């Protein structure tokens, strides 16, 4: 029976090609617009580290006082920490793992002296960085905790950087020259993509990843300036020492807290720290701290541009228009066949039979619309990627979930829109139709 209905449905669709094409086009365009916006949104608002996003936290502390924050920080908290706090938190070791970090720009000297030096982003971090963020290694390993202590000249290369410098070979033990000083390679990462790069949202969170990692203590000792955001408040002494002793905030800090109890304990630790600073006279205000995990952090930092949300709204409005359009056309099409249906009913077809036949017909239209919609989504993503920067469309691409979602959305929405016309078809009075003949 099902196959018979499909045949009937296809035949009926063929009977009025223009109307069918219009319906399919309307649904296809609507699905295409919607899925393009949705895919971009999913790519940008996704969880960058699903296996651990609930265990990685970023602490915030008010080290400026409630009156000294800009309008951009209504909760009187800033997004980074000062060197003083990072030093204190690292020393306290109150979490399972912790790392202070920052990005710096260094020049990389090629082995061939005839080549020009290039500029590279270097991330200065503690060795905990690698196990904390589940960073995969291809060769070697992270530097040791004693390297952190000894400010050792060691680096970890990203896979891309290793491909570029050593043609992908195992380079552990070899050296590279950063700003004229030799650094020994302790490990090479495997493919590692984080979108967005949640641990430092100040520099292009959807852009290229960090390529070289070195001990935080080494970067501080070599007075490597930071890239990203630096905000100062109050007195700042001269020189690098002045920066380190100041309340300027320019460092990121993350902790790993496996259980909720650990997180509670860390919250208490932060508050105790702030209270102690108040007692010591450094803070003239009550403790004000915050601890957010990855998801809460991304939400707090408004990582998805509001333009993307506007596009989502617009595209869903568009889909709605397209569906209503298709619904009107289906109504026209089905009611145009009222006399056919009347004859079939008179010959003994049940309401159910008519209903399922029409439903299958709309389903076929939805399926065709979904397939067209998928093609348009692919085209839409291509267009969006050429029109917008990475901060807007990230590395959005269609995966299996998106594909299934598109077809499901198309068929579901079309069948839903077709319910009323179908219901009307099932309630055609055979007698009236036959009389009119």
């Amino acid at each position, binding site marked *: 029976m099902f196959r018979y209905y499909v045949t009937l449905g296809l035949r009926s669709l063929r009977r009025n090609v223009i109307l069918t094409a219009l319906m399919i086009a309307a649904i296809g365009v609507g699905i295409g617009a919607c899925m393009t916006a949705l895919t971009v949104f999913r790519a940008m608002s996704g969880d960058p580290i699903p296996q651990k996003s609930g265990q990685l936290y970023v602490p915030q502390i008010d080290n400026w006082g409630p009156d000294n924050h800009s309008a951009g920080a209504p909760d009187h908290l800033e997004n980074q920490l000062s060197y003083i706090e990072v030093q204190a938190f690292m020393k306290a070791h109150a979490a399972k793992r912790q790392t202070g970090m920052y990005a710096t720009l260094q020049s990389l000297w090629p082995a061939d002296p005839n080549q020009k030096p290039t500029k590279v982003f270097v991330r200065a971090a503690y060795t905990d960085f690698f196990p904390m963020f589940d960073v995969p290694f291809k060769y070697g390993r992270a530097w040791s905790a004693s390297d952190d202590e000894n400010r050792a000249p060691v680096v970890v290369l990203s896979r891309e950087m290793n491909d570029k410098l050593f043609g992908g070979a195992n380079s552990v033990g070899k050296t590279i020259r950063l700003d004229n000083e030799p650094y020994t390679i302790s490990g090479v990462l495997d493919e590692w993509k984080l979108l967005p790069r949640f641990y430092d949202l100040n520099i292009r969170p959807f852009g290229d990843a960090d390529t070289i990692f070195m001990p935080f203590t080494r970067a501080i000792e070599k007075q490597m300036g930071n890239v990203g955001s*630096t905000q100062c408040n109050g007195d700042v002494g001269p020189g690098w020492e002045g920066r380190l002793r100041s309340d300027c905030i320019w460092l990121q800090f993350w902790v790993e807290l496996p259980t909720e109890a650990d997180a509670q304990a860390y919250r208490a630790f932060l508050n105790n720290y702030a209270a102690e600073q108040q007692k010591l006279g450094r803070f003239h205000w009550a403790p004000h701290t915050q601890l957010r995990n990855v998801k809460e952090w991304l939400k707090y930092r408004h990582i998805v541009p509001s333009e993307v949300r506007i596009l989502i709204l617009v595209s869903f409005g568009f889909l709605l228009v397209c569906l209503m359009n298709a619904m009107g056309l289906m109504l026209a099409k089905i009611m*145009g066949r009222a006399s056919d249906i009347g004859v079939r009913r008179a010959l003994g077809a049940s309401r159910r039979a008519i209903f399922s036949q029409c439903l299958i017909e709309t389903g076929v239209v939805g399926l065709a619309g979904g397939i067209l919609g998928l093609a348009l989504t692919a085209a839409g993503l291509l267009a969006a990627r050429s029109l917008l920067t990475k901060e807007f469309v990230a590395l959005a691409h269609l995966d299996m979930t998106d594909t299934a979602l598109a077809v499901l959305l198309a068929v579901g929405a079309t069948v839903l829109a077709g319910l009323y016309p179908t219901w009307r078809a099932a309630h055609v009075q055979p007698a009236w139709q036959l009389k009119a003949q």
Partner: protein
Amino acid sequence: MEFRPIISAMRRNKVGAILIAVQMAITLAILCNALFLIEQRVAWSQRPTGTDEANVVVIENQWVGNPPDLGARMQGDLAALRSLPGVQDATSSNTYPLSGGGSTTGLSLQPDQKNATALGSIYFGDEHAIGAFGLKLIAGRNFNSDEVVDKVGYTDLKPPAAIIVTRALAEKLFPNGNAVGQSIYEESLKGQIPIVGVVDRMQVPWVGAGGWGSKFAESSLIVPFHFLSSYPTYYIVHSQPGQAATVMQAAQKKLFDISRARVIEKALTLTTARTEAYKDDKGLVVILAVVCASLLAVTSFGIVGLTSYWVAQRRRQIGIRRALGATRNAIIQYFQTENLLIAGAGALIGIALALSLNIWMVNIFAMQRLNTVYALIGAIVVLVLGQAAVLWPALRAASIPPALATRAA
């Protein structure tokens, strides 16, 4: 035209009429908000920087290996750049308009003032800065060369001997319009800083709509520093009109001839910087325009389809009306009036929808309220669209021969 028969006919086709009206309402709501957004983003991305964009070349220079004589090297580079053929002037700075990165500071009228009077974005530059950026000095004077000193990285906190501010910043600090000769105080630098000159306009480096800098977009100050740092610094080279491309090539070659111990990550004109800086705004405009066009197309095809169906359904009745003496025009008018009624209802709902959509957008964006003119324009567009879409089915209806009435169905 008699409305009553149209309305009673519509009653029998309620769902179709409602479908068209709601479609038109949503189309209208999206259309006028999108048009408004397009207009705002186009205006936003066309704001002038105050510089001679087409002829200003920016070269990003970073020294490698921490050379100790950064000051002498920079002076040498600048002298060489200024002597290149086709170059009007050259300076070095920490950033440039449209770059998206820079430094902001709070400026106060009193020492130890709790909240700064104005925010300003800092450009470092020497006595050649005005010439190199192609700015217009409207009051006071340029820096003297003895006011220009070296600043060793961002942690060097010596106060400048003088500053030049933009007109917008001058008006914010001194609304009475006598900024030149006054002194101001800066957050972290000690001591008072005299304002010696005012330039007409120099935009801050951040241009994201609603982002950092959009609240003080024209408030910049130039401080007389040569920025000596392991960070990248920017050589700003003002070429003779039309010679930017040649100068860009020659300047990079010259710099590498002087020393190879440097990285030149990029060289570009401010015109290119503008294209890059506003890429997302332009992209959004194009996407919204395409969505609007598709929306109008889908809606009008929907009207054509549904009206055609109505015409087909009423062939006999139309034939009877024609046989009873109705003219072709009367038939056309019938369908056009019908569409006008539906579209009119849709437009009313649409305007309400548009305004509420706008309130939502104002809330999540720091966006302006929708100008009601846009709602009216949108309503007119939708009404005209409806009339145009209904024309073809109406003409087909008018061509139904009166003889149809006499034939058996």
